């Protein structure tokens, strides 16, 4: 919209007769102004997006130590990382927690959105309320979940104990720790994704459903054959979003271990983002951390590509 209003405005400027001295100004108005107007975003992106990206790449090629020695080692950091068990453990943790969190989260969000898309009383209030977990402070969430998933005197272990299941040591056992963190992530983000799905659902024309209803399609059939395929663009957005969020997971697992980036005594739930912070800001091996950050970037690209291909197939055809 803004694109076609702009030339029109400048055209009307041209019609006026101007003194020659103001020609430069008017030319700038036509040629330069659109760029000037969109530039703040790009300038900010260059400062806070591109520059750190390039800077990280630069330092990933150096052995940069706390002692202050900086030595060019080429791809040394990358080859060391690929042979570092701790790094691979972090990768597996990240992917594992991502899958554990995202798959149920997407399904839940979808069904939640479908339920919210119906007519009922206090619709707005209820729709808004699913966003509440998102606006809760991460620290508050962590405090509550840390206590729920405490080994001793934790609510979850108490409930499990009352049905005869042995208590889990949530911070020492790998899979239980992933489950606890995935629960925390889902609690925060399911509502958010549901609202986006809901917005997507509301753009689907009503007459499609009416036509389907006249043809005798059940509610369930309508969901699978109209809602889901029509929701595909929204879904691609949400899935890509969750992929990026899930693979850069940091605050939940960190707060789950008292603000410590170790992620368990043996890195049971240390994610790649935590690994980067640990190497960079605790071991002060900036080059190594920078290389790990680039590998994480690659991992996200791969994850996003896989998900994109996968989601494109949803709803079949085309």
């Amino acid at each position: 919209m803004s694109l076609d209003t702009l030339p029109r405005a400048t055209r009307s400027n041209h019609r006026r007769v101007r003194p020659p001295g103001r020609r430069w100004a008017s030319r700038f108005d036509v040629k330069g102004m659109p760029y000037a107007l969109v530039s703040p975003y790009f300038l900010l992106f260059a400062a806070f997006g591109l520059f750190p990206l390039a800077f990280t790449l630069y330092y990933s090629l150096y052995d940069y130590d706390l002692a202050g020695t900086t030595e060019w080692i080429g791809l040394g950091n990358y080859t060391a990382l690929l042979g570092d068990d701790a790094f691979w453990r972090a990768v597996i943790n990240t992917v594992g927690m991502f899958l554990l969190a995202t798959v149920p989260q997407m399904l839940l969000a979808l069904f939640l959105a479908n339920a919210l898309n119906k007519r009922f009383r206090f619709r707005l209030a209820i729709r808004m309320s699913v966003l509440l977990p998102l606006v809760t402070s991460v620290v508050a969430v962590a405090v509550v979940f840390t206590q729920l998933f405490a080994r001793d005197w934790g609510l979850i272990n108490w409930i499990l104990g009352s049905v005869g299941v042995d208590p889990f040591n949530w911070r020492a056992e790998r899979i239980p720790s992933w489950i606890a963190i995935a629960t925390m992530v889902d609690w925060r983000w399911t509502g958010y994704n549901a609202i986006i799905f809901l917005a997507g659902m509301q753009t689907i024309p009503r007459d499609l459903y009416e036509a389907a209803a006249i043809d005798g399609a059940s509610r369930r059939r309508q969901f699978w054959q109209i809602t889901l395929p029509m929701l595909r663009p929204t879904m691609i957005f949400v899935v890509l979003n969750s992929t990026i969020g899930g693979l850069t997971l940091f605050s939940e697992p960190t707060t789950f271990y008292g603000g410590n980036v170790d992620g368990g005594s043996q890195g049971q739930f240390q994610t790649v983002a935590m690994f980067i912070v640990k190497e960079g800001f605790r071991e002060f091996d900036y080059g190594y951390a920078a290389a790990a950050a680039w590998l994480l970037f690659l991992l996200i690209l791969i994850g996003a590509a896989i998900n994109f291909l996968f989601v494109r197939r949803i709803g079949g055809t085309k």
Partner: protein
Amino acid sequence: MMISKRRGGLVAASVLAAAALTVASCSSGGGTSQSSAPASSGAAEPVTIRVQTFGGGTNFGYKNAIEKWNAEHKDIQIKEEHLTDQFEQQYWPQMIQWLTSGTGAGDVVGIDEGGMGLAKAHPEWWADLKEFGLESRKADFPAWKWENGVSADGKLFGLGTDIGGMSLCYRADLFKQAGLPSERDKVSALWPTWDDFMKVGQQFQGKVKDTKWADGTNTLYQVYLYQEAAKNGNVTYFDQQNNLIVDKNPAVKNAFDFASKMSQQGLTAKLRNFTEEWAAGTQKGAFATVGCPSWMLGVVSDNAGDGGKGKWDVASVPGGGGNWGGSWLAVPKQSKHPKEAAMVADYLTQAQTEASIFTDFGNMPSNTKAQQDPAVQGAKNEFFNDAPIGEIFAKSASSLQPVFLGVKHAQVKNAIESVVQGMDDGSVAYDKAWQQLVDDAVKAAG
């Protein structure tokens, strides 16, 4: 769209930013508004000196001392910032970042013994306290405590706060319940050696079902390590030339073997010290004993809360004394009020202050005049059933030996403790733990 795109990273960034902001806002509240006015002008608003500390419970025990100073000095106000319980994992890395970036650190900062190697190697981080006349304090401290606060190029940067000493805190009420003697001298007599200690532990656990004998592997590992270090040239992970000797120093292997034995016999509550769960465990009676250097008394009493008063007591430790822990106060060069900061550091390490910290909270003074103070020598700790802590700690204080800790001690200590803890929580197999401990130590030192 940009906002929602990178939520994980954004949250991470905002956590860091929030931490940075807290610090920034503190510094602007205290420092920057002052910087324009000359420090000597009396009419200006008071200078705020930020004192940054770490540690569990009552940590440095500065609460009362600071209140006293603030009441007496309207022109210089002390504000304590207790940053975190954990030194190696959180406090020290954050401090190093602030020190290297030139902003964020307080005007007076606490440094644990494990960080002193690195602090000494970076004199450019610190203000020289000689410039403020504190060279005169030399006579107040044992030679080793003083010299550890002097960098290689002769700069005086750190003043000693407390020293370790060693004891064992125990739950007298649970001992009674288990049919064991609960009176401290008889309790001390129960365990002349660590083997006796484990045997009594088995007896205890046979009687009291819901309580383990010790908190976890890490606390006792440290106690044992410092006792062994005293027998092995007063070194732990590094030799005096800063070479890693984890695999060669028998002290490390012996301490590890002891921790492994404790864990395999099921005598630990599997809690890692200085975590929230450990603190909760202290309060809820998850364990009956915990290794107690002097400064640990304040940690235990604060974690246990008022409900623990009179239940805890202090006995002597099996296997003789040791010197685990103890800290220094330093003034970072970036401080805008180094003169006032030096005054505060001076005050907090004076004999009178250190003596009152000992009687109030238990941290054993490194100041020799304080150690000789009759009030210290005769001090009793109300929380610990009026235990004669002066007798327990002050008498042995002058004989304590310094343990040399390398430049990268903090990193290596954390790597090793993670294995010692991992062995206890089941994530590292007992038979593979030693090899992994050595490997991880090499990696952390590298």
